[in-house]
């Protein structure tokens, strides 16, 4: 076959279609294998209530994961999201305690979350401070602030209708999962169909080329962190609603579940590559794995080991399958 001179998008090219989706296909297979395994060995895993449970748990990883995907694609990282969730919950609870209406308090928390993200973005974009360092400082600072604000004691939120947000149902689906899926649709659109979304890929793929193409590189960098900050605050509100309190110890280690889900989903830690669909599959994979291990009654310490190994294997299989399908060595 001679090289093709193709000018039409219309012509469907199966190999191109498949090689562009090698990652998602590989992940789907991995999820099927995981499901088959857990269905066989974890009792009650395949029941509807448990599957809905997984969906609810997934939301607490997934909502932030959409923003984190953009952060990683742009070549950055944000490890502050776990403490950010705890901080947002505590702030919401203490605002409510001092008489601020919950809706107003929630708005304040989300805006502040976006501003905290902006802070990271500004330091990264204008002062060239690595985002890992800025968010490491925030990781320490936000948890500390939450502890100081609450004396490390949960602050109860005395509004029971509020609890329906995090613990309730909408059309038979857990409300947080509904929010997650709506945001997924929005972020998929943003990533693939908007100028901002494509600029994120360009900046992560080659920041210098993006700059010379007059893409506002600094603005893109600030925005991805601001979005992720706002999503962390939203997750903090949902978490507080689910727990009925603002808890400075909440969401510990959440940042690693999120980054793991995004990377398992095929997003490159070096920037430039990744998809929302991949992240969605990664989130499902991680949520199902965590749930299955608990159901199997695996010792909590051993769970950490198993999770580590499975995540590593998933990422490796993913990378290898992508290389295979691209036909490179």
């Amino acid at each position: 076959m001679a090289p093709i001179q193709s000018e039409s998008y219309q012509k469907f090219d199966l190999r191109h279609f498949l090689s562009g989706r090698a990652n998602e296909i590989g992940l789907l297979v991995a999820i099927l294998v995981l499901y088959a395994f857990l269905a066989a060995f974890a009792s009650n895993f395949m029941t509807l209530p448990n599957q809905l449970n997984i969906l609810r748990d997934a939301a607490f990883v997934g909502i932030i994961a959409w923003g984190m995907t953009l952060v990683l694609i742009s070549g950055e990282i944000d490890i502050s999201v776990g403490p950010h969730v705890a901080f947002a919950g505590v702030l919401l609870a203490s605002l409510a305690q001092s008489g601020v209406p919950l809706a107003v308090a929630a708005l304040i928390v989300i805006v502040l979350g976006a501003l905290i993200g902006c802070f990271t973005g500004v330091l990264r974009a204008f002062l060239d401070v690595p985002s890992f360092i800025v968010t490491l400082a925030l990781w320490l600072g936000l948890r500390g602030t939450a502890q100081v604000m609450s004396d490390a004691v949960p602050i109860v939120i005395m509004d029971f209708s509020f609890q329906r947000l995090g613990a309730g149902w909408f059309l038979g689906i857990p409300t947080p999962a509904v929010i997650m899926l709506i945001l997924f649709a929005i972020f998929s659109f943003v990533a693939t169909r908007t100028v901002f979304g494509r600029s994120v890929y360009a900046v992560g793929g080659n920041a210098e080329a993006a700059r010379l193409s007059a893409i506002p590189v600094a603005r893109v960098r600030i925005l991805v962190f601001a979005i992720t900050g706002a999503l962390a605050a939203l997750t903090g509100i949902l978490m507080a609603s689910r727990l009925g309190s603002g808890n400075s110890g909440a969401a510990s280690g959440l940042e690693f579940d999120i980054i793991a889900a995004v990377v398992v989903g095929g997003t490159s830690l070096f920037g430039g590559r990744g998809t929302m669909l991949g992240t969605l599959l990664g989130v499902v994979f991680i949520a199902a794995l965590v749930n299955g291990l608990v159901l199997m009654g695996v010792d909590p310490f051993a769970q950490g080991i198993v999770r580590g190994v499975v995540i590593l294997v998933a990422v490796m299989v993913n990378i290898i399958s992508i290389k295979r399908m691209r036909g490179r060595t």
Partner: protein
Amino acid sequence: MVPMVEPLVHMRGISKAYPGVVALEDVSFALARGEVRALLGKNGAGKSTLVKILAGVERPDEGTILIDGKAVALRAPMDGIRAGIATVHQELSVVPELSIAENVFLGRWPTRGRRVDWRRMQREAHDALALLGLHLDPRQPVARLSVAERQLIEIARALSQGARLLILDEPTSSLVAQEAETLIRVVRQLAEQGTSIIYISHRMDEIRKVAHSVTIMRDGRHIATAPVADVSNREIVDMLLGSAQGEGGSTRIFGQPGKFTPLLTISDLRVAPRIENASLEIRAGEVLGIAGVLGSGRTELLQAIAGLRAAHGGSMTLAGRDFRPTSLREARANGIFMTPEDRRGEGAVMMLGIDENLVMASWGSVSRGGVIDRAAMRRKVTASIRSLGIKLAHPGEALGNLSGGNQQKVVIGKALNAAPRILLLDEPTRGVDIGAKRQIYQLMRDAAADGLAVVFVSGEIEEFCEVCDRVLILRGGCITGEVEGSAIRTETLADLTTGEHGVH
């Protein structure tokens, strides 16, 4: 002539496919000791793929490789190096943060005991570069060097490996005439000492000076191999392009000088450290060439106009108003767009699709309220691909998969899509084949005919003759000469840039 005993390398029945593209189809290739072979073909013909397989960078789907008559398996670049094969790849691969000396010895740093022997490394690096006519302090980081200097460092790296087979994939693509001459001299010397050389280039004039024999490839197939003396340029071009559309007459068409209108006037511009005092006028409707030797500040001049480099003195007037761009964005807003010479590093995003790269600098025209209008994007991309003649499997595939010349066309397409008033092209034909070059010249002429001011920098003097209405000579930091219309000739320009005839 070359003694044809047992070949040093013999590649037999090599095939290699990428998704959607057959890069090589049953190619056989043999090379004798001390032979310099020119490998020719259009962009995407499979030249780089063939030498990458020989260097162990890519693996063939089929075929065998014999070295000294013995079959070898080249699985990784290290295997190639062990087999005595040194390669200068088409895409630059220097580490900008490391020093010149470290780059020359990359991965093979000389040691004393366990420690790197810095003094020896610096001395040898200096000598290796001096051989190529480059006198630089080997301790300075490569980041400060121009693309041409980086290219010479890569060549020095390959030369210093003492290889039996030296592969040069477009080694002169960003060098100007004298550096290319020096390299050619060094290559001939090595060949006399018994080194075999594969030399890939799109520059016809070099081929005759450097090679004993030529191999011509087209669409992944071997077309012909013959001693250079036995084939004419015309025959070569015909075989390359696959039809009798060879040299023909000069296709040069001029604009009409009466219609040129001054757009940007630059007076006494100073850009430290290279430009002392440059005064020139850029006119709409005209293709203006800027000629000069390596390090004469051609790129810096363009960058100052494009807002990428601060001027230290002088003034610019754009369409009658004072113009002092402090940022790329400002220059862009005033209709100025520049394509950089380093394609991989600055020109494009290799991981993204060809389509996105084409519209990357003009998102505004294919989106509404920040949302991409996919139909508009397709129309624009399809039009660009057609007018540029880009060879690809699918518009959505990663730009990095394209051959070098086709990548370059995408970078130019991106600039044209940005619809500038002044288009600054820094080495736009670097690594582009003869057919594509002509298309690019035509694109430049069309742009000028549409009223754009096109400014064109090239290291190949012959190019100015093909496309420019006017050429300025940049020498010693000043504009020292101006040649217009039919007075633009290779010999004239060569003399002016090197100052041989002392025209001031």
